[in-house]
């Protein structure tokens, strides 16, 4: 009962004095969306298992500020990324850049699928030629005996 009273009091006391549509947390929501979209593809260097967008680390906040500033100055996403890569290397990118060293990474899955299907096709085609059920003459003899009703050896 006292809790209910407290809640009611709380509600009435905090009732809409100047109820309004809440302001966006960011000063410029459109820019912020762009900042966060890019930040989600970047890796926080301190909490290395979080994106730059999620991380609460001070460095992450600093870097988000840098990203925001650069975007406000009119830099493109590629230029902002370049700024960070210059200082921290490719490690900061969750989307690995396409380079000679990452060709295998990016084309690997397709390659695996292609090789898998190629092997499959070859095996299926070869089956048609080789009739290998593994039955030997010994097996045929035993089968004949069984069918004739005698005990198998």
């Amino acid at each position: 009962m006292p809790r209910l009273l407290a809640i009611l009091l709380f509600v009435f006391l905090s009732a809409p004095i100047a109820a309004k549509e809440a302001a966006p947390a960011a000063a410029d929501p459109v820019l912020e969306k762009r900042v966060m979209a890019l930040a989600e593809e970047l890796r926080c260097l301190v909490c290395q298992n979080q994106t730059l967008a999620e991380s609460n680390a001070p460095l992450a906040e600093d870097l988000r500020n840098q990203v925001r500033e650069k975007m406000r100055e009119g830099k493109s996403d590629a230029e902002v990324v370049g700024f960070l890569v210059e200082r921290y290397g490719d490690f900061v990118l969750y989307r690995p850049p396409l380079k000679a060293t990452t060709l295998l990474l990016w084309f690997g899955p397709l390659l695996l699928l292609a090789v898998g299907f190629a092997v499959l096709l070859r095996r299926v085609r070869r089956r048609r030629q080789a009739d290998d059920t593994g039955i030997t003459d010994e097996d045929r003899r035993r089968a004949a005996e069984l069918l004739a009703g005698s005990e198998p050896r």
Partner: protein
Amino acid sequence: MIPELGQLALALALCLALAQGLLGLVGAARGEPVWMAATRPAARGQFAFIAIAFACLTASFVSNDFTVGYVASNSNSALPLQYRVAGVWGGHEGSMLLWVLMLSVWTFGVTLFSRHLPQDMVARVLGVMGLVSVGFLLFILFTSNPFLRLFPAPPDGHDLNPLLQDPGMVMHPPMLYMGYVGFSIAFAFAVAALLSGRLDAAWARWSRPWTTAAWCFLTVGIALGSGWAYYELGWGGWWFWDPAENASFMPWLVGTALIHSLAVTEKRGAFRSWTVLLAILAFALSLLGTFLVRSGVLTSVHAFATDPTRGIFILALLALVIGGSLLLYVWRAPKIGLGGDFEPLSRESMLLANNVVFAAAAGSVLLGTLYPLALDASGLGKISVGPPYFDTVFVPLMTPALFLMGVGPLARWKKASLPDLASRLRWALAASVVAALTLPFAMGRWGALVALGLLLAVWVAASGFVQLYEKVRNAAGGVSAWTRLSSVPRATYGMLLAHFGVAVFVVGVTMVKAYETEKDVRMEPGDTVEVGGYTFRFDGVRDVTGPNYVAGRARITVNRNGSLVSTLYPEKRIYKVQNNVMTEAAIDTGFTRDLYVSLGDAVSDTAWVVRVYHKPFVDWIWGGCLLMALGGALAASDRRYRLAARRPQEQYVAAAVR
């Protein structure tokens, strides 16, 4: 006293496991019935002692025995009872004990449900599992002993990580380990088959329910982890392609290929060497996963406290167990033979294609996870591979699998006809195309990726209905629809349900990714914000105290079209012992959408930053996983596995290795 008892119990379990391993394998090789018969009691004894050890550790936690180092690191006197129990598997050493407990539970299960198997097969399966257990028990006793004492004992514990103080987190590791460890049975059956040379349809039938059951547990375990991340981490994300998540996903992918491959081996005797290899691979990936999260080789949110000695030990275990079985494979597999013949267009070839897709998917996940390590090891630089890569690569890979899921079950064994399939599936195709073109508009806008997702999901669901319809139409049982429905085997229902679950899952993922909306706002009491057609009003924040935390709890009232939908209470908690700050999101769960509210920071005395999300169909993600697991459970409990248990040992005139 109790911790020492626990340690003694583990040592005894080790002896019994060793006995089980040697008696089983050597006994089967030498054809000694007494030795083979002794494996069952040895296995049961091992289970009993590991259970005792686990009980001892649990007792130490419950009684707040901080003289035990592991308890001191993972518990606290203010910790509620259920989390003191969960703390048993909250850290590395205890989770290894849980692992080994799960292994002994599965082993015990095998001793119970294997009466119908030939004695040498049971002996070999139990033998292999025994040796795996030996490996892990040695690992625990030598590098990861949870019973070590701490002198001087601290006055209170370090507390369980607040992230783990949650029901979802409590169930996630046991489910996951049941899955990981369950694949050891499929592995044991495969190795036993390679050793005995008897790799026939019967082997597949024995192995199948165990493998499917393990797969069910793994599905549930992964879904729990994902669901937990969604409601606990405050950002509404549910999958991050984190190395540890990948470590659980890879065995799942290979496990899925395995259960499908076993189906073919059981029905047609084909794919035998493929199936054996998949069984080895599934368990290999389980072990690899264990290695990755405990060795420090990769960074992950899930990584346990790492130690190079432990890493080396697990690597050695991995090398012995998998290296050994792959060598056995090289030696024995060429003699296995091809089995039943089939045409390029047939259910077999489609299932084989399915295997290729899932194997390629697992390989891609492995590639992405280990690539940074490979580059670093070869001195070629340091990169990161994250969600942008996996998301880009995974969807195109899975698309063929989803397409096959519709066609495969309808294709005939041995020889299927394309015109026949096309005619039977034309309505399903039509339904999918119509859905892809029109449904997105119901959500507001059309997008190519959404359309693709819906196309595939409706395709799978619609072709599932076609399968059911045909089965019922063709089934025996006369006129009554009910008798016809009940004459369809349970395994078929299992398959249909599981595939339907996949369709539901795809809908969830597609819709939430395409149509979720969020707003990040600064709210004073009384302020409102509109998201997804709902109005959220911030009523202020008050202080609350929990058992081991203090929090600011906000009240958010949600309305739609003037009527109250719900009241949400997101919190910002500070756990006193470690001084961690945790965000507890408040979620209004609905069948067609979730309303997700997360409290940010206070920006003034009265104003707070609040994040509000509208997530359409997000619960279909986990609903789909649950359906998949239920489908698997149905399939595993099919009559023919239980009937087979009552039939005496069978003789086979099949291709046996000389």
